[in-house]
């Protein structure tokens, strides 16, 4: 211990103290090792309030920025948007349009999730699978949906199937990337424990790798969800759908073409609201009942 040792503190010794023994307190209230939290403590954990404050702040900022910009044809105020939203819901069936988009989206999303699981299972179990996944991901991930739609039309015709194809493309790669990264960071010990149980192949993936990589997969699901929306709206914006069943993207596109910008924003707000609900209800629920409960994330 050469070099920068602290200044020598001399030969200090602690005072000599008497020994003692105690009898351990009887198990009173501390005895029941796991006491449920009080209702007050439970309420303290609710984050809805804080999140709502954030939302209000964003709305206020928006209102101020738009008022200051004073260009209602490009950037309507929050109030105007809410009014347009209200009207669009009651007079233009915005909700049913949102439902049309949502149902296409859910289908594409579900298919993509299944494909991602299959692809990454394959990738994680063989070396060539790994190469295939990583090559395909780096090839297709950067391709915009719009570039793929013509081919989709050629193969699947117009309408929902092509949109679904494009959606699958949008969700599959980022989800596969996250899932695969999650798989590869599972601790070696846990991996060995699983194989020790005799797990292999798909059972190994399903019962061990997927829960162990769940934090990463959840991120992938969130990113994928967001990109499904982005793609659906963009695809509907650019390509529309067969006239009868316009979705949210179509609503936005049509109103943009007609310069009803407040309605465009109403459409975007609908997307945002759906996003908030899904994040704060669906994903939050999943998170609370999985990774948080398991102590895998803070």
């Amino acid at each position: 211990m050469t070099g920068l040792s602290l200044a020598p503190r001399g030969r200090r010794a602690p005072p000599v103290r008497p020994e003692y023994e105690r009898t351990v307190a009887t198990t009173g209230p501390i005895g029941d090792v796991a006491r449920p939290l009080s209702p007050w403590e439970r309420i303290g954990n609710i984050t809805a309030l804080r999140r709502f404050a954030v939302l209000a702040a964003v709305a206020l900022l928006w209102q101020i920025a738009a008022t200051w910009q004073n260009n209602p044809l490009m950037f309507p105020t929050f109030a105007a948007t809410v009014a347009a939203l209200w009207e669009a819901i009651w007079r233009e069936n915005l909700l049913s349009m949102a439902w049309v988009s949502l149902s296409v989206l859910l289908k594409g999303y579900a298919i993509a999730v299944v494909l991602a699981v299959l692809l990454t299972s394959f990738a994680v179990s063989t070396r060539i699978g790994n190469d295939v996944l990583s090559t395909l991901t780096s090839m297709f991930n950067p391709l915009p949906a719009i570039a793929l739609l013509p081919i989709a039309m050629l193969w699947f015709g117009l309408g929902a199937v092509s949109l679904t194809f494009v959606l699958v493309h949008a969700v599959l790669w980022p989800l596969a990337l996250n899932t695969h990264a999650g798989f590869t960071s599972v601790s070696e010990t846990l991996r060995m424990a699983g194989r020790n149980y005799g797990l292999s192949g798909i059972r190994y993936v399903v019962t061990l790798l997927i829960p162990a990589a769940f934090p990463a997969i959840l991120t992938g699901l969130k990113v994928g969800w967001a990109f499904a929306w982005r793609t659906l709206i963009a695809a509907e914006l650019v390509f529309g759908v067969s006239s009868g069943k316009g979705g949210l993207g179509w609503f936005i596109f049509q109103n943009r073409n007609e310069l009803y910008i407040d309605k465009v924003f109403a459409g975007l707000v609908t997307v945002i609201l759906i996003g908030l609900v899904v994040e704060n209800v669906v994903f939050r629920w999943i998170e609370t009942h999985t990774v948080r409960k398991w102590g895998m994330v803070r």
Partner: protein
Amino acid sequence: MNAFTYPDTVDTANLSERPLLDVSGVTLQYKTRRHLVTATYRVDFQVFQAERYVLLGPSGCGKSSLLKAVGGFLAPVEGAIRLNGRAVTGPGPDRMMVFQEFDQLPPWKTVKQNVMFPLLASGKASRREAEEKALDCIARVNLSKFADVHPHMLSGGMKQRVAIARAMAMEPDILLMDEPFAALDALTRRKMQEELLQLWDDLRFTVLFVTHSIEEALVVGSRILVLSPHPGQVKAELNCDGYDHFAVGSPAFQDTAQRIHTMLFADEVETVKGLPS
């Protein structure tokens, strides 16, 4: 512990002449991007049916690596590992392992589910049987109160006890234990040792046990393999059958302990000399 009286009732008819586990000339290496680390060099030993075989050696000498190789997680670069005459090619539930690391419990399962998991995964038991068995084993490691708790709420020693319960519940052909009791206090440790011996007395399974405590080796083991420092090579193989907790003070026990101590100390002197002051 007075039920622990096997020498009187040995049934020699079943004595198998072929070793259950045959490790011969095993060299283990880790390949990394730039280095090739030799963990053990040409280690050989045999473990017979119902033996309690202990691997003893200094830190980093390759004990865990040997256990992993027997578990089928690490392929030897030289030599062969045979279980029941068949070469070990991969992991399986016939060799349950208690790992040295604390993160060996799937965090998404409660203590009970963790113990049930391998029973169900290997198809060894129905759900009801597995649950019954799990609760029994959890009680044996004194964690009944924590059966429905997730591992992140447990202390280090409690986690290791769950791992032990999990391995014991499987009643494997051979139990691989990597310093299973290292994180336990003297008392719990003693209780777990007794529990293990009691169970062995009931079921006569085979254990391959890694420890760094000479005393523990003598109490738990029936035969001890002493390994040299890194890279691990066989230094000696000793018998230590017949020592239990009550033998700890006996002269024979102290003799053997001293002998092993000296073996390890021989290196010590050497190593210390090589150390920069």
